[in-house]
C-alpha cells in the first residue's frame, strides 16, 4: 500500500465525507449546511494551522488551547469593559497571543528546555492569566459580528472564505526563506544548524507565528460563541495535535504539505463529529424506543480519533524489523 503514503489525511477525509453524505442526504450540499460545518469548526481548523507551523519546525505547543481561551477573554473584556471596537479588541488579543508565543519561543529556543514541558507550564500560567482577565463567563459581542461570521461573502460562507484566505496566505509564505528554514529544522535540527540556519531565531519565529494564529482562532471562537468563557478553548490543544498527525504530513519536509495536511486532518475531525451526530439522530428518529445517552456520542468520537491516529500504521511502509 505504498501509494497511500503521505495521502492518508485526504483518504480519511474523503471516506468520512462519503459516510457523512450518505447519512445526511443531499441536504449536505446546501450553502447553509456547509456554512454551518465550517463556521462551527473554524476555530479548530485555525488551531490546527497554528500547531502545524510549530510542528513543522520540530516543536509542539500544548498551550494553544489556553491561548485561544485567553484571546476569547481579552476580546470580551475589551468590548464590554473598555468599550473598544471588535477590530480593536481582536488586535489586542492577537498581540497578546503573539507575545505568549514569543515567550514560549524564547524559553524553548534560547534556554533549550523541552517544548512539551515549557508549553505545559505556560498553559497553566495562561489559564491563571485568563481567569484573572475574565473571572466569570459572560459578556456579548455586537450582533453584526456573529451575523457576518455566520453569513456569506460572494455566495461563499464567511468561515470557508476566511479559511481559504488564511491557508492560501500560509502556502504563499512557503516562498520565503524562513519557512524553508523551519522545515529544515523540523527534519533535522543538527543538519540545519550545520548548514547555517539560525536555529534559535527561526524556532522563536515559529512559536510566535503559532501564537498569532492561535489568537486568530480565538477571534473566530468569539465570533462563533458570541460570549466569553475562558474554559472554552482548552480542548483545542489535543484536537489540533491530533489533526496534524491524522493529516499525515509530518516529516514530509514540504511546507505546503504541512498546511494542507493540517486542514484535512482538522476537517476529518469536524466531519466525524457531524457523522456521529447524524448517526445518533438517525437512530433516535427511526427507532423511537431506543434511548442513547449523549455520553456515547462523546465516547464514539473519542475512539474514532484514537483509531484515526492509529490508522497511520496501515499505510506505513513495512520495514524489516531491525535496529535503526
Amino acid at each position, binding site marked *: 500500500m505504498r501509494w497511500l503514503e503521505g495521502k492518508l489525511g485526504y483518504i480519511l477525509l474523503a471516506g468520512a465525507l462519503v459516510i457523512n453524505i450518505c447519512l445526511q442526504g443531499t441536504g449536505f450540499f446546501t450553502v447553509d449546511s456547509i456554512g454551518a460545518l465550517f463556521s462551527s469548526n473554524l476555530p479548530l481548523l485555525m488551531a490546527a494551522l497554528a500547531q502545524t507551523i510549530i510542528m513543522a519546525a520540530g516543536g509542539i505547543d500544548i498551550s494553544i488551547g489556553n491561548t485561544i481561551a485567553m484571546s476569547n477573554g481579552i476580546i470580551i473584556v475589551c468590548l464590554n469593559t473598555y468599550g473598544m471596537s471588535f477590530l480593536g479588541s481582536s488586535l489586542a488579543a492577537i498581540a497578546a497571543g503573539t507575545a505568549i508565543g514569543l515567550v514560549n519561543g524564547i524559553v524553548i529556543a534560547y534556554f533549550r528546555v523541552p517544548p512539551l*514541558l515549557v508549553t*505545559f507550564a505556560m498553559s497553566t500560567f495562561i489559564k491563571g492569566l485568563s481567569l484573572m482577565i475574565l473571572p466569570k463567563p459572560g459578556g456579548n459581542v455586537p450582533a453584526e459580528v456573529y451575523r457576518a461570521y455566520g453569513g456569506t461573502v460572494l455566495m461563499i460562507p464567511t468561515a470557508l472564505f476566511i479559511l481559504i484566505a488564511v491557508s492560501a496566505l500560509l502556502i504563499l509564505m512557503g516562498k520565503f526563506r524562513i519557512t524553508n528554514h523551519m522545515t529544515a529544522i523540523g527534519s533535522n535540527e543538527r543538519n540545519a544548524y550545520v548548514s547555517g540556519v539560525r536555529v534559535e531565531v527561526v524556532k522563536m519565529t515559529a512559536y510566535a507565528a503559532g501564537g498569532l494564529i492561535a489568537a486568530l482562532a480565538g477571534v473566530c471562537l468569539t465570533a462563533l460563541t458570541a460570549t466569553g468563557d475562558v474554559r472554552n478553548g482548552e480542548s483545542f490543544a489535543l484536537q489540533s495535535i491530533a489533526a496534524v*498527525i491524522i493529516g499525515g504530513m509530518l516529516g514530509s519536509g514540504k511546507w505546503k504539505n504541512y498546511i494542507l495536511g493540517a486542514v484535512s486532518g482538522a476537517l476529518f475531525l469536524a466531519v466525524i463529529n457531524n457523522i456521529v451526530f447524524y448517526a445518533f439522530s438517525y437512530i433516535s428518529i427511526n427507532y423511537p424506543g431506543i434511548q442513547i445517552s449523549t455520553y456515547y456520542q462523546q465516547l464514539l468520537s473519542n475512539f474514532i480519533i484514537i483509531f484515526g*491516529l492509529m490508522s497511520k500504521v496501515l499505510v506505513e511502509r513495512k520495514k524489516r524489523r531491525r535496529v535503526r
Partner: protein
Amino acid sequence: MSKIQSKIRRQELILVGITLALLLAGCMINGQFLRPANIANILIMASLLGFVASGQTLVVLSGNDGLDLSVGGVMSLGAVAAYIIMDGSNGNLLKAFFIVLLVGAAVGLFNALGIVFAKIPALVMTLAVSNALTSVQQLITGGNPTGAPSPAASRLATSKAVSFLPWLTVIWIILIFAMYLLLTRSTYGKQLYAVGSNERAAVLSGIQSRKIRIYTYIICGMLSAFAGFWLCAYNGVIYVNAGASYVMPSVAAVVIGGTSIAGGKGSYNGTAAGTIILTMISSLLVMMDTNEAGKYMMNGVILLVLLVIYTRHPKIRQ
C-alpha cells in the same frame, strides 16, 4: 564517573535546599505551618501525588519521549470504580482493589498498543485516551457516581500512625522502597534504564525493548489506578474526573526530581523529593490565600523557573 556522581549529589543538595527554604518560608508566613496536623496534611497530599508520580517516573525513564498524560484519567476511573464496587461495605474491599488494578492495567496496555505498535507519540495517545476515559466515567456513572468507600479503607486512609505521620504516608514509604528495589535490583529495572538511555544499544545486547516499554505502561496504569483507589478512600466522595488535577503535578514532580525527560536517567527518590516540594508550594499558596487565578499563575511561573534550572539541553554545537 566521579563527575557524574558529584553532579547527582549536587542535585540532591539542591532538592534538600529547596525543601528547607520552603519550610523556612512557611514558618515566616504562618507560624502554624510546622504544626503536626499541617505536616500530616501535606504528607497525605504528597503521598497521593507520589503514587501517581511513581508510574510517571517509570514511563519517563523508558525514553522515546515517553510521557503518560492519562494518569489522571486512570486515577479518576480507578476512584470511580472503587467507589461503586466497594459501596460502603468491607466485604467488597479486596474485590474492588483487584478490579481497580486490573482496570489500570487494561488502560495501560491500550496505551502501550498505540504507542509501541502504532507509533503514535506518547503525549498524543495518552491525551486522547484520557479524554476517552472521561466519557467512560460519565457513561458508567451517568455523570453522578453513587457509592461509598468501605469503612476499613477510609479509616486506614484518614488515620495517622504518629501525630504527624499518616498511614497513607507509611504506604508511600513502602512504595518508595519497593520502587528503589525495582529500579536498582531487578532485571526489569536494569533493562528499563538501558532502553531509556539508548534503545539501539539495548536491542543489540538482546533486550526486548518493546516488551519493556509495554510492561512500563501497564505498570504505570496499575499504579495510577492504585492512587485512584486511595483517593476514593481518603476523599470519601468521588466525582467524575476527580484525579484530573494530578496530571500536571505528576510530570512536574518527575522533572523536578531530576529525571531526564529524554529517559534513562533519574530515580524515584528524586521524584519523591519533587512531590514533597510541589505539595509544599501549593500548601503555601493556600496559606497565602491566593485566589484560583493567582494559584495557576504562580504554579506556571514556578514550574517554568524549575524547568529552566533543571532540564536545559546542551548547546546544539556540542
